[in-house]
Structure formats: structure tokens, C-alpha cells
């Protein structure tokens, strides 16, 4: 198998918290190398404390062992830090269809999150994944997982999750 084929095999590994996405389209897999009989896979955490990373590591090993690789080594790399900009357009659309508002591309010169009043520091409107309305408001900057925030749509009166742009 070539590294490209291994990468293709890794599209079977899903994010356990967001099962509509695989780890390749999320941009978590940074590199695949073959050295003799050993496959090295570099992955980068979406958030340092994300508990899904352990599950993902185990799933990578399991998936590649099922393809006949006995030696699979997963390396956690922090540089460059993961950004939602690495998520493919296809992945964003899958998120939206799943009911999670996808992260917008980060502005090239996104201002640092400095301690200004929240109304000023807040980014562009987040469209509702259900009805598309921009009449939405954040109910909490933190959600059920480290990567998401909670929003509410005033138009269709639905609460929804938003994948934070980082």
C-alpha cells in the first residue's frame, strides 16, 4: 500500500463525537509515512484536552492492522496547531446537514480574542443549520464538546450547536 492508499483507508476512522465526519476530512491526519513494515501516522488534536483523541488513536491502529500492517505508530503533533480552516468544504456541508453550524473560514487577519466587550469581539452571524436564518444568538460559548458552542435560532426557535472557528 502507498501512503495515499493508507490515507484513503483512514477515511474509515470517524470522529466518535461527530460520526458524520472522518478524521482525514477534519484535517486531523497530518502525515502518513511508511518505514519498512511500520506505518507512522501523525495526528494533531483539535483541542489538547479532547477525550476523543484516545479513541481515534486506537481506531487508527485497529483499521491499519486490519489491512495487514502489524506495526502502527501514532504520533501526536502540535505544530502547526489545528485550525478549522483545514476542514474540507465537503466536511462543512456534512456538519450542516447533521444539524451543526459549520465554522466559517477564519478571516486572514482575524483579530486576536482580546478582552473587549463580547458584542464587539464576536464574529460574523452564524446561520441556523436548519432554516438558514441569521437571526441567531449564542447561548453559551461552550457546548457538549470542546469544539462546539451553543446557539439558538430566533426564526425557527431551535437550539443548535456551532462548530467554533479556531
Amino acid at each position, binding site marked *: 500500500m502507498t501512503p495515499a492508499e493508507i490515507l484513503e483507508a483512514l477515511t474509515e476512522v470517524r470522529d466518535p463525537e461527530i460520526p458524520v465526519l472522518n478524521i482525514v476530512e477534519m484535517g486531523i491526519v497530518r502525515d502518513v509515512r511508511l518505514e519498512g513494515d511500520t506505518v507512522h501516522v501523525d495526528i494533531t488534536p483539535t483541542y*489538547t*484536552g479532547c477525550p476523543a483523541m484516545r479513541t481515534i488513536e486506537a481506531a487508527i491502529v485497529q483499521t491499519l492492522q486490519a489491512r495487514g500492517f502489524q506495526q502502527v505508530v501514532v504520533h501526536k*503533533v502540535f505544530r502547526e496547531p489545528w485550525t478549522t480552516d483545514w476542514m474540507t468544504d465537503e466536511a462543512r456541508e456534512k456538519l450542516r446537514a447533521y444539524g451543526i453550524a459549520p465554522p466559517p473560514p477564519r478571516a486572514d487577519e482575524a483579530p486576536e*480574542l482580546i*478582552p473587549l*466587550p463580547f458584542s464587539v469581539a464576536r464574529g460574523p452571524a452564524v446561520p441556523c443549520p436548519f432554516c438558514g436564518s441569521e437571526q441567531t444568538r449564542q447561548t453559551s460559548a*461552550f*457546548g457538549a464538546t470542546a469544539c462546539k458552542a451553543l446557539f439558538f435560532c430566533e426564526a425557527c426557535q431551535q437550539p443548535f450547536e456551532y462548530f467554533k472557528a479556531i
Partner: protein
Amino acid sequence: MNLETLDDALRPALFEYLLRLGDDALILGHRLSEWCGHGPYLEEDIALANLALDCLGHAEALLTLAGEVEGQGRTADDLAFLRDAYDFRNVQLVELPRGDFAFTIVRQFLYATYACLLYKALQQSAFEPLAGIAAKAHKEMQYHLRHSSEWMRCLGDGTEESHRRAQSALDELWMYTGELFEVDDTLRTLTEARIAPDMATLQPKWREQVETVLREATLTVPEDPPYMATGGRHGHHTEHLGHLLAEMQFLQRAYPGAQW
């Protein structure tokens, strides 16, 4: 430089420094996690648990690296669960009991302002693995800073009661902030090697940012006390750390190597 090219003469100081960074994150993360199920309302409960998780993530990365630098085969878990209080290198600020919600928020704000400045500077560290962790942690700490700054304004410029509690927490915590910027031989060695930033340049920035938010929050900047708490970086802690460790380490101490 990286783990392979690291000068052996720098190892002891770098190990010590990584413990300081990792222990700050670990102990603060544990204090934040104590709010789980006790937050003032559901969204805030979730927020504090998220902040705790970030801190534990930073601690795991930093303590893993500390173990690698030490070279004795100790893992992040060994360092977190099998050291006693006098081997911990966190500042006393993070070990104080969580107090009321205002106390937790004020501490979080003072610490997050410091951590954002520190991690930003550490991205330029000559020790690449640390620069990598700092880049990641900086992104996450900005959320902590935004969250706690918002709350500072809500509490300070809120009701009479919330203002009183926030001011009282601030007055109580102020004497624990000096330790964040202390410089000793360990730090001087690493600053010289361009691994750690010069704390003297960070302190005025910290002070300016803190004062800006305090003003908006209608809170009064405390006067510098005659005595600033010190000692955490060298293993001298308040009585509270021992109690925290007794709970945090119980399982690994009672059932060594237990996993689930």
C-alpha cells in the same frame, strides 16, 4: 532545538520549568473540575468543565514533555499522580480552594491574562516541542480569557452583591499574583537560552490588561500588599494543595496502575 539536540546542561532547568507550567495547568484544571455539577446554571456548568478539560489537556502535553526531558521514563500520569505536595511546582494562586463563583472567576481572569501572554511569548521558544504546545494552548486560553473577562464585567458592574463578592475575591487574590512573574536561576538560565521569555517584559502588559478590564468592571485595583505570597515554584505550598492531592491522587495511590 528539540529533544535530540537539547544541551544536557539545560535538562534540569527545563524539566523544572515544564513542571511549573504543567502543574499550574493541572492544579487549576482540578479546581475548575470541582464545579462540575455545581455551576450556577447549566451552561456555566458546562463552560467550567470545558475550561477544566483544556487545562488538563495542557497539563498532559506539558508533563509528558517534562518526563521526556527528564529521561527517567516517567509519564504524565506518573508525574501527576505519584508526586507529593513538595514536588509540585505550581503557583499558590491555582491551589487555593475554589471559593464562591466570583472567586473562581477572578482567579480565572488573573490567570488567563497571564497564560495568554506567556503562551504567546513561548511560541518563539527555542525549544521546538514547547513552542508547539504553546501555539495550541494559546488558542485555547484566549477563550478562557474572553469567558472570564465577560464575567468580570457582569459581576463587577452587576448587582451590589456581585460587585462586593468580586471585589472581595480580587482583594484576597492580589497577593498571590506576584509569584506568576518571579524570576530565579532556573528561569534566568532558560531565558538566556531563549527557551523561556523574559518575565519582566510580560508583567507590565499583564498589569495593563488586567487594569483595563477591572476599570470596565467598575472594580478597584488593589494596592500592592506589603507581602506577596511566594514559594510554590520551590515546593512550598499552602495547606490546601495536600488536600487537593489527597482527592486527585487517591485512586492511583490506593490501586497502583489501575486503569479503566
